[in-house]
């Protein structure tokens, strides 16, 4: 920056020579202020989503920059919400970027008093083994009168109602094929 440019950006100079003699407006605007723009403008992408809290189903726009969610706000196109959000919906960025989010698998061994680390693939393999074992140990072919049961009461599941339809569909399909009938949801609660 040349001295002249530097000097001309000096607020007092602008104040004295410009239209803002009291130096409270245009003359006082800093470089940062002059360049301010909403960060949504700089987003790499915007996804059209739906609020994950209650069942009103408000539209959300999710802005992402450099692999981080930088803003979530209402989708004005939605005829349900008209761009508005409640405090929970408005806190969605805070939810998905929360410093409290646990992003690593945690494992508690029987009788342990603390968590330990576990590799995701190993965890999946261990869970599959446990499903197979529980099923084998508790399988029921028929009832007392010889009527088919084809089932296990050895394990169960409880799903939240923020699961997607596609997720619920696969869960029910897999449980049913495994003969596991004890699957429940927040919808019962």
């Amino acid at each position, binding site marked *: 920056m040349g001295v002249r440019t530097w000097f001309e950006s000096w607020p007092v100079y602008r104040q004295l020579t410009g239209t803002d003699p009291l130096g409270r407006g245009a003359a006082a605007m800093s470089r940062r202020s002059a360049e301010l723009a909403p960060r949504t403008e700089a987003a790499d992408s915007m996804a059209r989503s739906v609020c*994950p809290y209650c069942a009103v189903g408000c539209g959300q726009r999710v802005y992402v920059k450099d692999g981080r969610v930088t803003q979530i706000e209402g989708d004005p196109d939605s005829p349900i919400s008209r761009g508005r959000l409640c405090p929970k919906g408005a806190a969605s960025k805070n939810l998905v970027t929360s410093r409290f989010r646990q992003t690593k698998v945690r494992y508690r061994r029987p009788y342990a008093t603390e968590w330990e680390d576990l590799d995701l693939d190993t965890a999946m393999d261990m869970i599959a083994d446990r499903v197979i074992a529980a099923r084998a140990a508790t399988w029921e072919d028929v009832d007392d009168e010889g009527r088919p049961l084809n089932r296990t009461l050895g394990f169960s599941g409880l799903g939240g109602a923020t699961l997607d339809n596609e997720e619920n569909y696969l869960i029910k399909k897999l449980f049913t094929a495994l003969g596991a009938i004890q699957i429940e949801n927040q919808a019962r609660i």
Partner: protein
Amino acid sequence: MAECHPVGFQWAMAAKERGAKIFHVDPRFTRTSALASTYVPIRAGTDIAFLGGVINYILSNELDFREYVLAYTNAATIVSEDFRDTEDLDGLFSGYDPDTGVYDPVTWQYQGHEPQAAARDTVIERETASPLQHESHGPGVSWRVDRDETLRHPRCVYQILKRHFARYTPEVVEQACGIPREKFDEVCRAWTENSGRDRTTALVYSVGWTQHSVGAQYIRTGAIIQLLLGNIGRPGGGVLALRGHASIQGSTDIPTLFNLLPGYLPMPVAQLHPTYSDWVTSICHPKQKGFWHHAPAYCASLLKAYWGEAATPDNDFCYGYMPRLTGDHGIYKQVFDMIDGKIKGYFLMGQNPAVGSMNGRAQRLGMANLDWLVVRDLFEIESATWWKNSVEVETGEIVPTECRTEVFFIPAASHVEKEGTFTQTQRLLQWREKALDPPGDARSDLWFFYHLGRIVRQKLAGSTLPRDRAILDLAWDYPTHGPHDEPSADAVLREINGYDVKTGLTLRTFGQLRDDGSTVGGCWIYCGVYADGVNQAARRRPGGEQNYVAPEWGWAWPDNRRILYNRASADPQGRPWSERKAYVWWDGKKGCWDGYDQPDFEKTKPPSYRPGPDAEGVEAIAGDDPFIMLGDGKGWLYASSGLLDGPMPTHYEPPESLVRNPLYGQQANPVRKVYDRPENITHPSPPEPHVGVYPYVFTIARLTEHHTAGGMSRYVEHLAELQPEMFFEVSPELAAERGLTHLDWGHVVTARGVVEGRVLVTDRLTPLPVADRVVHQIWLPYHWGPNGWSRGDSANDLGGMVLDPNVLIQEGKCGTCDVRPGRRPQGRELVTYLNDYRRRAGILESHHTPIITTDTAAESYRQGRPDK
């Protein structure tokens, strides 16, 4: 509504600006009350008494919308001469069996239909919550009924209803509910004056209404009012459930529920459905009207979706693979089975029962007796950590070094890190685009269950055991993509929609599903969501660019209809009831139904159509039968079947109450489901002694600033700081009576648990004069637990599990309690404290309130079996 669905409430506010009156009925004055035209305080658990009073007001003043009622409801239908009402039997209907605790509904049937009900097994129906399976389809009722169009026949539904509700007078409403006479009158006047040809009134409830031992009947009472006033199937009318979770509607449509399959198809029951044909017949009900007639197509297409090529007409589409129910396998039964060591493993997907479910102690004790537990969540919720920091660890009931449960915490992807559909409260599916990949080990549930299934199938590959055929033959080939091999939600949605096996083309409507194995359809009511190969749920034509129904935003089941039964928005001849309320109408020139919404009727069936005498199913629906899913095509003022606790709603006190039922000798719902266990003690209620040990009523609900069990709000700073810790609300009168000081500590005690919090003394709660006493109500939010940024005791530790018999949902919204100043005892002293209360109440070991409190049970049994 303002409290828990603020953005939805903008529409109520918009209506208010245009002159609508809003009445808010709630035990506590909430943010909704603050904006309502009139707030009506009510004693928790007395909604049927209140709404029954409204029905009585309508019927005794003949203010019903007569033309609508005659044409579209079963008001004129004649009921069996053997039917006995609660009027005759002191609060019981005919047919009660004191041994099994359920009704034989033979005498409740329409005249001449009695034999239809003779074969029903209501014990199994209660155990399997079978009325829930009829959420969208009427149980079997033949459509040929005797009617009296003058409504004068003493046994026509209209007259029966009138007699049944005659005792629900304003005085009774005042006594039972604590609602002053003039307020009640105001509600009745406004509701009736604002209903009819030219006006409609909406009834909006939040799903706390379902959390009662008579929950289904609460909603029935509302539905009866709305039918009598002609407010169903019309714009501005309806009975609208404000559901509390993003896709809780979807979770029943495509259920992860033990007794349901997608599209409300019932899970097979071993005793009732040994064969495919038994199962299918039980759904399609030969001889009745309506679209359930096509159930064989829905069933076959679902089994084709499950077992693909293995499913053929010759092997009944692999029906033999289906696991069978034998009774109650619901979540509460499971919890006790866990405590008893019968269940080895437990998956939790975005669910926090340690805080969010009733009777938290039983939930945690159950989890402490598993072999393994898998928790999938965004945060380390209490259901993942009860083994180190729960109340039971404090009291020594759970000793970490002695607890064998192996716990896997698998982090979950958030709603922006995966794609898929939510179904919101209005049956509208909306597709979410994925914004970015989930962090670290976090994965979607789609990923988790797809890969779990894949690994299990790998491990079992080559097995020759018959039991493994179902999992090995399963159609489980979903395309995957991305760095984590994420399965395609789009492909799953296509399967849910259904397609033609030969061409692979997606189907447009459930009418295209076939029973011969030529179509796949994962959820028949969702058929059309992928019509024309287009993801209709992803449609986002701006609301401002279409009519107010906005049919091109997302997709609603069935067939993108936004108001169900909207044929009723036109008169029997197909003309709008009024220009102001025009919605769907018959266009004689075009020869089809037209309107702002997709008509919920066969497009070209004219209003004048009448079925032949032998017609069945869809063909039997007359041109003026709007209720196309019900067996007689009518809206039911009287439910001859489908509900286990009576054909008409009846006021029963909650299982825990301070007062004797002011209407009948029968105190509480005689068909309620009880688990009589030491972990699940119910307090004494009248007419039992010792009611005074727990002398107040508590009710539990949500705050705007938090979400359910707090798993999505206590860890979110911008929310948690707005309601930073556990508190409970009492009236100034109760504060004075109990020595509670604003902002000081206090605690609430039941036989199940003690919960402490700060006391908020507020005018928003008021003592209610009820019968011969004053009832004080305490309100608690249930958002807290020991984890998270903001922490506190869990209010759900106070509640017990007594269930509605129709749907097996718990009484969660009212119980009795004591309240004291100061903090609760800690550690072992907590157990001693609880036991002292129990001892004084005479319920130390175990207790549930007596099921029958009238001496008419034997008479009811006898009356219920006229021929025996």
